[in-house]
């Protein structure tokens, strides 16, 4: 599987470490930094596990060491693009179930191979 790193271009997935879904924002801490139990329980352990397009954090550990968000279909493993993690949260996320038109694909992320 090839992943289009926004900085490096297309790279083999072996260079990346998956870091989980980028869907859910991290819950706020409760009073006096005490975690809000149910919210953190859901955040840490509950996943929808949908058969659809997903946004997942990957760390380009054997590359530019950037955190990126990869847009991947969980059934077909088709990767439709990737975004720098910082940019992902600044911009509107791609609609679920639709191909991501905004993220860099092989057209914009030049093939680094």
């Amino acid at each position, binding site marked *: 599987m090839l992943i289009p790193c926004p900085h490096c271009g297309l790279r083999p997935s072996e260079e990346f470490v998956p870091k989980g879904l980028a869907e859910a924002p991290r819950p706020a801490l409760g009073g006096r930094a005490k975690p809000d139990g149910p919210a953190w329980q859901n955040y840490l352990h509950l996943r929808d596990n949908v058969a659809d397009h997903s946004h997942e954090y990957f760390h380009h550990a*054997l590359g530019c060491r950037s955190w990126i968000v990869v847009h991947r279909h969980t059934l077909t493993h088709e990767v439709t693009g990737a975004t720098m993690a910082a940019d992902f949260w600044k911009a509107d996320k791609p609609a679920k179930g639709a191909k991501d038109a905004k993220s860099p694909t092989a057209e914009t992320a030049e093939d680094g*191979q």
Partner: protein
Amino acid sequence: MDQSVIRSPLGPSWTPGHYGTVATGDDGSAEAGIRALHTPGLLLVEIAALPGKGEAMRAAVKKGLKLDLGDGSPAASLPNAVCSGPDRCLLTGFDLAAVKAAVGDLGLAVDQSSGRVRLSIDGADVPGLLAKSCPLDLAKWPVGMSQASHFLHIGCTWYRRSETGFDLYIGRSFARSAAEWLIESAAEFGVEILVPDA
């Protein structure tokens, strides 16, 4: 008496000389398909721009260190300024204080002189060696391009210095493993470990 011993991060196997296959040139002398050089004592500083300050930092580096980093992309790397990531660059041959003065508060400058080693390889058989160790297709790299990728299992920043010459920047604690593998793997081509300049 000073009991300290300075050991090479590449280990005892990295000793100047010829290893592996010996090909004979037209004049009867031994020829190596790959020549390899480690540069000890190299000054290495990594700079990283603070968020949103990449362009400003590159302008400051251009003014302070006379280095034109272009748009900061891997293709804009220089022999002594190799792009290692987004708005990050490895500078060689510059004093940390000078780099910090140039970068100012636009980014961070960290001394990596003891953190990384640079191996330079050159020779007609370098493509054969890279085919066994690097997942990238070097035929697509223009001269002057850097790639942050890996050398075997070891994270490595590559820089294409010439048509057949590459620099590898490798973490110091992995350097011995990389050096031993390089010698073993390059043996089929013949490898000459060069003596660094004094």
